[in-house]
């Protein structure tokens, strides 16, 4: 090979780009994300405070807003624990045992993620409304599913169905069954093994799944909108309340309630980043969603 002339300028690393290209790409990225992500989020808070702090506080403490907040918390408090129990059961069966049809089962568990939110609500209306399969029978018993909190809970469970399971399954698969087998051979029963060996090993992964599940449960709009019936003070969750206020041109009210959900989103992101940074080795390797 020909030696390079000694007086040639110092050459840049051949596996990176010229400085100006690098900074151009960085600026494009930051500018794009500022316009697409930061600006809309900031505008939510500014919109809520547009008429001062007094109007903001009045909007979030008004009776219908409080009812919406209560319902949202209630729905999440039912839907998230149910999906946690399901996620743990599914992960135990799938990760700790070898059986046929496993990959089909995993695909089916992931299914709700590829269904449109509106369709997620629609399926429960088709089943449980007065014109649905089970509707007339339930109606005779005096049970109302659609246009009530029950329907909202069902739709919320559906859209958040895979979150916990898809976090736990790969994590528990990576961990294998050695520790559990040791516990069993030392005389522990199934529940002792689960609570003292398996659960401590997946705590952070479980928390990660719960975090994402909860954010979606509290923020879901499309699915809940279809089954709710929009009865003010009764079947309105926070996102539905935002829609009503916005359509009534009460922008301060809409953005004030929206700012609560935006804060929840920011806290969720912060905790999620913290988990990824601090406990990266205790999460499933594909943990980023």
């Amino acid at each position: 090979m020909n030696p390079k002339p000694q007086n040639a300028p110092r050459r840049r690393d051949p596996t990176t780009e010229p400085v100006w290209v690098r900074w151009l790409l960085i600026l494009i990225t930051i500018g794009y994300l500022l316009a697409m992500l930061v600006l809309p989020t900031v505008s939510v808070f500014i919109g809520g405070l547009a008429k001062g702090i007094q109007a903001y506080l009045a909007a979030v403490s008004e009776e219908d807003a409080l009812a919406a907040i209560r319902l949202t918390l209630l729905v999440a408090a039912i839907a998230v624990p149910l999906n946690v129990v399901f996620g743990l059961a599914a992960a135990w069966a799938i990760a700790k045992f070898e059986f046929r049809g496993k990959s089909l089962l995993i695909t089916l568990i992931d299914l709700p993620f590829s269904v449109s939110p509106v369709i997620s609500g629609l399926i429960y209306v088709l089943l449980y409304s007065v014109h649905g399969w089970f509707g007339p029978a339930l109606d005779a018993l005096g049970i109302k599913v659609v246009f009530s909190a029950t329907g909202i809970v069902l739709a919320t469970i559906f859209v958040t169905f895979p979150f916990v399971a898809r976090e736990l399954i790969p994590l528990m698969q990576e961990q294998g069954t050695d520790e559990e087998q040791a516990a069993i051979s030392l005389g522990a029963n199934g529940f002792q093994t689960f609570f003292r060996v398996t659960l401590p090993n997946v705590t952070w992964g479980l928390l990660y799944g719960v975090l994402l599940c909860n954010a979606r449960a509290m923020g879901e709009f499309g699915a809940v909108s279809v089954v709710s019936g929009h009865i003010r003070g009764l079947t309105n969750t926070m996102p539905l309340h935002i829609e009503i206020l916005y359509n009534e041109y009460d922008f301060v009210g809409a953005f004030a309630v929206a700012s609560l959900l935006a804060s929840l989103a920011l806290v969720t992101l912060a905790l999620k980043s913290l988990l990824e940074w601090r406990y990266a080795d205790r999460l499933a390797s594909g943990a980023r969603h």
Partner: protein
Amino acid sequence: MKPPSSLFGLHWRQPSVLPGFGLTLGFTIFYLSVIVLIPLAALLLRPAELGWSGFWAAVTAPRVLAALRLSFGAALIGAVINAVFGLITAWVLVRYRFPARPLVDALIDLPFALPTAVAGIALTTLYAPNGWIGSLLGLLGIKVAFTPLGIALALTFIGLPFVVRTVQPVLQDLEREIEEAAASLGAGRFLTFLYVILPTIAPALLTGFALAFARAVGEYGSVIFIAGNMPMKSEIAPLLIVIKLEQYDYAGAAAIAVVMLAVSFVMLLVLNLLQRWARRHEEARA
């Protein structure tokens, strides 16, 4: 001790000393059936009451076709924008060091965390003719809110993280040696990117694109505020489902839903096959 793994003479699971298989698998299948499988089955069977010709008439009505075209078209535009900017973003986050990089990285997932209704009213207010951005674009004669352009914008927003998050890990694992080899053979950075890096990350890019597209097709919350919702013009398919439901046309609503699910399903299937083909191609080359 041998557990009864060969019940009915079928070896459908390997023996294990761990307990609880029957209980957990039973609960999993029960819960899955009640929440997901039975309701989806009800959806698939519902249009049957229309009969084949009724079903066909319901999904080929001009208003339905226009809505489907808009939903899939706008989702495609959003996914293409996300592929381009997602690739640049992933590249910048993996390859370059700059101030606040961890913060930028964390911010990417915001569209996953921010409720769609919140995103919807925020984008609408920003891009409305009297909004911060809308008034600037208005000077240029561009209208975003209450037009199909606004729909594409909202769908770009909600699909933003997918491409970044699928491409990022692949870029991270990319071996620097092949780039050094390309450079030593005389390729410039652009050619190296085009012929060495891009083919390697193409499957991930395609996956992210498809995920963003699939998510955008069904999106409702962020779109209805900004769309304007004019029949035939800016009415998306999920909104039409809601309208049919409000008119108690349950079978009609189910028919549109079935078509949307079918098209998305076929798309994901084709993508899966493409990826499998790409992987085999890759392995054959290696």
